[in-house]
């Protein structure tokens, strides 16, 4: 009931948002171009107050040829959660950055760039976070190949 209310409240802000199935938290599929505006509204709306970007990561759906970006938002004063899901093309992985809304997104997005190669538009400092700058490939992509990596023998 509450989750439904939450979803209704967010859909009032962004009518394009669709509910993502198969999740255990209220999750909305948002078009990439509407992401920043929606996030800002979610943060500033006094009834929603999603002030904490709990985490941000990506999923590589290789078979469907797309990346799914997940933004897990939480509200510290109100204690509710919302996940935003953004799907982008695998060949052209560009999304707008959330740095201006959530400062921590700067490093979370650097991590996702490091692991998946997703490019964030307007990111102030888009560098690799964990790997060396001259690393070839993006390890968490499903088609990543590495001569160094050992497969488990079976």
């Amino acid at each position: 009931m509450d989750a439904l209310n939450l979803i209704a409240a967010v859909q009032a802000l962004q009518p394009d948002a669709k509910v993502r199935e198969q999740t255990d938290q209220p999750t909305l599929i948002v078009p990439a171009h509407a992401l920043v505006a929606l996030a800002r509204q979610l943060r500033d709306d006094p009834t929603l107050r999603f002030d904490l970007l709990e985490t941000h990561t990506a999923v590589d759906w290789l078979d469907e040829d797309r990346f799914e970006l997940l933004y897990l938002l939480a509200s510290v004063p109100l204690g509710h959660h919302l996940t935003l899901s953004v799907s982008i093309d695998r060949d052209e992985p560009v999304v707008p950055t959330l740095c201006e809304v959530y400062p921590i997104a700067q490093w979370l997005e650097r991590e996702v760039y490091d692991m998946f190669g997703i490019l964030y538009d307007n990111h102030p400092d888009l560098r690799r976070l964990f790997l060396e700058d001259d690393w070839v490939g993006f390890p968490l992509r499903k088609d990543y190949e590495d001569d160094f990596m050992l497969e488990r023998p079976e």
Partner: protein
Amino acid sequence: MGVITDKLPGVLEPVPGGSVLLTAVDQLINWSRSNSLWPLTFGTSCCAIEVMMATGAARHDLARFGAEVARPSPRQADLLVIAGTIVKRMAPRLRTLYEQMAEPRYVMATGSCAICGGPFMYHSYTTVRGADEIIPVDVYVPGCPPRPEAFFYGLLTLQKMIKEGESIRHPGERRRPVLAALPEGMTLDDIRKEMQDLLSHDANVNMAAAVAEGARYSSELKDF
């Protein structure tokens, strides 16, 4: 993969042309080196808690071995304890640290990660599978992480190696990378024999006889 180019560490070598006096001096120096192993404060992950902190703390007290003088600068340290996972990005730094240390320097690999990559052996794109691919390792202390007593046993093993094998004229010569695969032209029997030679230096017990006797009993018991 790797090749063993040298003998196992810890084997006593006769010193060519060495005199009695020099041998005594050698022994004194080896004694002092083995009893004054100042570790470098270096730890990468979980093993650092057990091997660098818990051993130094009151319950186990590394100071009993004279090794509590943890030096933060590699120049003054004698012992590099590789406590934790070494990843590709850290590998050149580890090499630098090792090169910055002054001879004689000893290396202990503690925990599965430092020995062979441990839990991160498969499907990890960064973990170096064994610190001995980067720097020569003297003593391996297995465990994940090894309990402090296991570390002390490793330290005793290292002390034994220094007392028996190290010579001031050949600092660091015997320590080469040893990898998992067997080298060409070397059979398991060779290793067995070397190890038995090593064990037979233990003056108190006739280990060779003991091992032989044990083997005889085992073969008898196979008929059960």
